[in-house]
């Protein structure tokens, strides 16, 4: 399967297009505010920003319904926002507050939302893949129609669990859409320096999976490819591996001096900033004017400011609850 075409194609529906733009802008501004809060010591520990990859998170998420299950990684802010989790509880979680989506227990790498079937971020590279296989197995055994979307990075393809998970999903024909966000770097190691075969979508065939790759900077192309993959899986054809070729504009994490790549390379990719690309195409289609864009910017900025206020105001979980939630309530 070759890369999906990213030519202009037909003009998209205006309302949906503006929705996609707004979602990507919300993620961008959320991540910028997170970086600011981190430098002001409001957020501690690890923080992995999604800036540059917004199109893969938002585009692919359109292929999944509330009944589907989502499994993500530690670079999950974009996935959580695209899945519908409010910016308030995410910011509060990174502030470590009890009002955070994981009550301050998880932090930036471990957002969870049972109601939205967002089964969280996993900080062990590849750790989420077996979980996704299990969720899909449960759907199949219970004769449910749900599909499981499993996001992971190019680094995970080097883990044994990637190979075990693809094989088991294909062996048992499980409804999983493996979404590999290939941003070309596993922290400080470029793809070509850790994989003999760098075409990730080509790794599916040996395990009997259908697969394809798409330009991760084109939100419409990503959406189309993801919907095609999800339809394939929903039809009971077994799992699908979709490679989303993208790039991160920021370092791996706040503590990363980013010495392993050149400024020129980053600037080159920034020319295909998914937000800027889509903004320009919408204007070209006459679907977006300055006033509309400015209103969008103001609304998103206000939403993010409100998220910070919500996080600041949130209470700390009392230390007395330290041992709560280790195991369930003792049965009567």
């Amino acid at each position, binding site marked *: 399967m070759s890369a999906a075409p990213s030519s202009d194609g037909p003009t998209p529906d205006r309302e949906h297009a503006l929705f996609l733009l707004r979602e990507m802008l919300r993620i961008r501004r959320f991540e*910028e505010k997170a*970086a*600011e809060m*981190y*430098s*002001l*010591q409001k957020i*501690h*520990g*690890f923080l992995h920003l999604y800036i540059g990859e917004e199109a893969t998170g938002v585009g692919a998420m359109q292929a999944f319904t509330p009944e589907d299950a989502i499994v993500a990684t530690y670079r999950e802010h974009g996935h959580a926002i695209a899945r519908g989790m409010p910016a308030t509880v995410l910011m509060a979680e990174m502030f470590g507050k009890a009002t955070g989506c994981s009550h301050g227990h998880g932090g930036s790498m471990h957002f969870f939302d049972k109601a939205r079937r967002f089964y969280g971020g996993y900080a062990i590279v590849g750790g989420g893949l077996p979980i996704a296989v299990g969720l899909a197995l449960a759907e199949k055994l219970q004769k449910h129609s749900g599909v499981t979307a499993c996001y992971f990075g190019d680094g995970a393809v080097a883990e044994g669990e990637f190979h075990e998970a693809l094989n088991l999903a294909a062996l048992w024909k499980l409804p999983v859409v493996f979404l590999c966000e290939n941003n070309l770097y596993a922290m400080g190691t470029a793809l070509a320096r850790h994989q003999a075969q760098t075409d990730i979508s080509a790794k599916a065939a040996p395990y009997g999976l259908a697969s394809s790759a798409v330009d991760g900077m084109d939100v419409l192309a990503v959406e189309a490819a993801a919907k095609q993959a999800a339809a394939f899986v929903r039809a009971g054809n077994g799992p699908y591996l979709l490679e989303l070729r993208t790039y991160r504009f920021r370092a791996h994490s*706040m*503590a990363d*001096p980013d*010495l392993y790549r050149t400024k020129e390379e980053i600037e080159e990719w920034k020319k295909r900033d998914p937000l800027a690309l889509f903004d320009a195409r919408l204007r070209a289609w006459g679907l977006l004017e300055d006033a509309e864009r400015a209103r969008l910017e103001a609304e998103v900025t206000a939403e993010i400011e409100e998220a910070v206020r919500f996080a600041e105001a949130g209470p*700390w979980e009392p*230390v007395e609850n330290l041992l709560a939630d280790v195991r369930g309530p003792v049965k009567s």
Partner: protein
Amino acid sequence: MAEFRMPQLGADMSAGKLLRWRKQPGEPVQRGDIIADVETDKADIEVEVFVTGMIEKFLVQPGEKVPIGTVMAFIREEGKPAVEAPPVFPVAPAPAAPSAIFPPAAAPAARAIPAAAPMEPRRLHISPVARKAAADLGIDPATVQGTGPAGRITLEDIQRAAQARAVQPAPEAAPDRQTRLRQVIAAAMARSKREIPHYYLSATMDVSRALAWLAQENLQRSVEDRLVYGVLLLKAVALALREVPELNGFWREGRGAPSADVHIGVAISLRGGGLVAPALHHTDRQSLGELMKNFRDLVQRARAGSLRSSELSDPTFTVTSLGEQGVECVFGIIYPPQVALAGFGKIVERPWSAEGQIVSRPLLTATLSGDHRVSDGHRGGLFLAAIDRLLQEPEKL
């Protein structure tokens, strides 16, 4: 005016060194522009600004290392009126470590370091349960020979020592046995006088009815089953203890601990000197015949040195009787950890007024030594009165 502070650039970073500014005061900046390079212990990092405006003033010069949060520059935000730069306050020290952000965790209660026990002359090699038993039995562990590994004193050693208080004419040479017994008695008596605030009461009782009943009773009994007078006293005391229960029990951990059971310790003098007070278990529940049989057996075993440890450590009250040695009135010392002791003297024929007449009656003086921490004279008096009343109806004992 917006402050540009030294940012947090890594999980374990506490300070950063400014390498150089990328802009100069008066230059405009956009949100996201790189305006400085900072050196951390990991690497040199480009630092972005989060506001759009114009650089007003630098407060930190290249080459200076400053803690995170230090204000390094002022930026007049675009669209905000030029305002006199706020007076520069000495930079507040970087917010204290996390505890400033998190509510101060309850300071761990200062661990009360137990005052080091006064160093015993030589650290006793004794097991914990043996140490506790020694304290309960009022035995000084230093006097006990340890038979455990490497000479450690075990529980059994302490129990044997307690039994040794009833020193058996064991093959051990008499003087040695004698001195060790004396030491044990000395330790118990000294502790009793030191710790227990004794009060003493005495009462004289007409025992004519009891003696008459006893003589009559013994006529019907074979020689082996004959009762001695002391048995009547023991049963009377046991029943009286039921009426004044606080006299029956122990003093433990700073408070009285009455015992549900009545085990009267009977003071038995040993041949060649020394004293032991083993218990007659459940004295109050035994018939006079049973009491007599058990009492005889107890005396014989005490004098043969084969008492059981439980008999030595169990008495809840002690009775001493020195009548046969001619003593009329004896005020005894309480055996710790017990809380009372009764004493009986010689039966003496004496004038006594009955129904306004002076008659001759066999009289007995009964005494009570009580631990004032647990009971007081008023209750002690009721106890002696109960004994007197019970002895008037010997057939009911």
